[in-house]
């Protein structure tokens, strides 16, 4: 009978204490207003560049690719400190988390030379074009098409036509990684290819999709015959599905799936919330962090713990909302985005972002489906 893989607790390598101390002292000096869900809503290019200058972006990329050759567990230390502080890390988040590793695994030397150093410096931000108006959870149904074009003024390449939605940060990004159907008549997981499109580009229109709070984080990105030269195809044509899914364990199990509302927890502590209520949250978070660290450890050993990553995201994102409920119980503040009271403000940020916690990066229902398949019942 298929069963759950056992997750060993992750162990932080020696030397991370010093790294953690350096991040903390940087954060203590840095000027920013902490916010909930800062990895999606807190974009600050200058802050990203400051992190890059300290060697905290592209950490796991090897030196030959312009990175810092650090382990995924060292990166774990840096990002959990940044997230726990509510630091504005959104601008570079996707480039650092998944585009860098993806370029390393699938990119040509030329693509790596062109994009990785900028990612590492915090000067090149990426967006990811996956979902479409008619393709959400069912990602394999994407309809954006890539058609072959030869001998034009820019040489051989592809023309992209279609629409991507919920594209976080596309309005700030220097490039977008697009998943498109490159084989006419292909179905499902076959015939998909990833393309790198530097922005802005002719034939690409980026329009804001206002969030329910009125804020602008998401975009609609319309491709109207936008040209992509062969040199900017990522990986092998037709191999897009495998490339996209290979990164999912990285995307789903990180501390950003537990810590989006940590600022609220910190404020509850500061305001002297009921110790038992605080302790319940801390106990849960302690356990979830061990699991997230366990997945990071497995990834560092070269394994791909997809089921465990799905579990962490399912339970972690639900924990993020538990913190909101505890903050509401503590009362003393009503959510108000413009309030001078940090608790009222953080509560407002958390409440309006919370529906997204259990949607983005694979809905919790999809994740539980992955777990059920791992259990052998599906």
């Amino acid at each position, binding site marked *: *009978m298929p069963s759950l893989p056992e997750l*060993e607790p992750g162990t932080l390598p020696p030397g991370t204490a010093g790294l953690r101390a350096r991040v903390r002292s940087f954060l203590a000096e840095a000027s920013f207003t902490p916010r909930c869900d800062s990895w999606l809503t807190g974009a600050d290019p200058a802050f990203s560049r400051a992190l890059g200058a300290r060697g905290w972006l592209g950490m796991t990329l090897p030196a030959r690719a312009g990175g810092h050759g650090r382990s995924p567990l060292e990166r774990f230390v840096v990002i959990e400190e940044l997230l726990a502080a509510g630091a504005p890390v959104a601008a570079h988040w996707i480039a650092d988390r998944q585009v860098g590793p993806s370029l390393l695994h699938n990119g040509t030397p030329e693509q790596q030379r062109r994009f990785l150093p900028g990612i590492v410096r915090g000067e090149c931000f990426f967006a990811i074009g996956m979902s479409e108006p008619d393709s959400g959870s069912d990602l394999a149904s994407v309809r954006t098409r890539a058609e072959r074009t030869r001998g034009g003024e820019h040489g051989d390449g592809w023309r992209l036509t279609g629409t991507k939605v919920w594209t976080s940060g596309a309005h700030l990004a220097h490039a977008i990684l697009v998943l498109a159907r490159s084989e006419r008549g292909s179905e499902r997981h076959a015939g998909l290819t990833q393309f790198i499109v530097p922005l802005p580009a002719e034939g690409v229109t980026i329009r804001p999709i206002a969030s329910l709070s009125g804020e602008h984080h998401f975009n609609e990105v319309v491709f109207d015959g936008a040209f992509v030269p062969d040199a900017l195809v990522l990986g092998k044509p037709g191999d897009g599905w495998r490339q996209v899914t290979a990164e999912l364990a990285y995307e789903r199990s990180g501390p950003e799936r537990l810590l989006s509302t940590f600022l609220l927890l910190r404020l509850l502590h500061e305001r002297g919330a009921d110790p038992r209520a*605080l302790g319940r949250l801390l106990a849960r978070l302690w*356990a979830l962090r061990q699991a997230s660290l366990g997945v990071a450890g497995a990834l560092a050993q070269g394994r791909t713990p997809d089921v*465990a990553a799905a*579990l962490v995201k399912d339970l972690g994102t639900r924990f993020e909302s538990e913190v909101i409920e505890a903050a509401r119980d503590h009362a003393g503040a009503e959510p108000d985005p413009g309030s001078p009271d940090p608790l009222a403000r953080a509560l407002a940020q958390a409440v309006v972002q919370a529906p997204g916690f259990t949607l983005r990066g694979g809905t919790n229902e999809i994740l539980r*489906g992955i777990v059920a398949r791992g259990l052998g019942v599906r």
Partner: protein
Amino acid sequence: MDDPLLAATADEILAAADPWPALEEAGLTAVGVPEEAGGSGGTLADAAVLLRASGYHAAAVPLAETGWLAGRALAEAGLPVPPGPLTACADPRRVPWARGAHRIVVVRDGEARVYDPAGLEIVPGANLAGEPRDEIVLGGARPVAAGPCGADLRLRGALARAVQLTGAMRRALELSVRYAGEREQFGRPIGRFQAVQQALAELAGEVAIADVAVRAAVRTPDDPVAVGAAKANASRAAGTVASIAHQVHGALGVTAEHPLHTITLRLWSWREEFGGEAFWAGDLGGRAAGSRDPWPFLIGM
């Protein structure tokens, strides 16, 4: 990683109906207690392998009590670990397995005192699974041995029960997955229905998170933050796991005939023993309240 040979041996022995004699014969009743002191040797992680297996098989044996609690306390007090089942307590109420114990170790005020139960009044009690949870009346009884011991039995007991809970929860998961694959309604196995799949996935999530957290706590068994968080989380998970397992099993699961109850009765008992979620959440929250910043407090650095 668990020692695979030990895990296989533990699994084989603890699956049997009355495993105590076989545990004694294999010298596995006091794993984690140094051999020089009369224990079985091995690490605390090895001891956890046995406790996890005892939880998985719902084995009615004082394994946590003999080695993890009494044996380690005796060794630390410089006292020999006697043969036979043992137990230990700080509080004379709800003492696990007191009535069948060869010796009872009371750890209080920085001292371990060893009593012969024959000289004590024992008021029987039990948990939901029928495991003895007795009250001992020391009266004027004189200990047969004593030595200095600073062990925190509540902390140790909490970690032991947390380990047992993770074993029992894993079994609840396996029973539920198997049943969902076998039981047919509306012409197909109930595990083919998304509603059931989603419930099983939630069950699996709780089991996996509790398991990795408890394994992490076993590595730092004297850290009250780690142990408290692990027990609070395991106790919380136990309720969710028992409830989903029963929902999946339907009416069959609530019968005495089906083995599920041997697991769930223990989940509902062990989650309270040595402190449930509320106790450990209060302990953790109280410690956190005394810290300047909850983040370094939480991650211990």
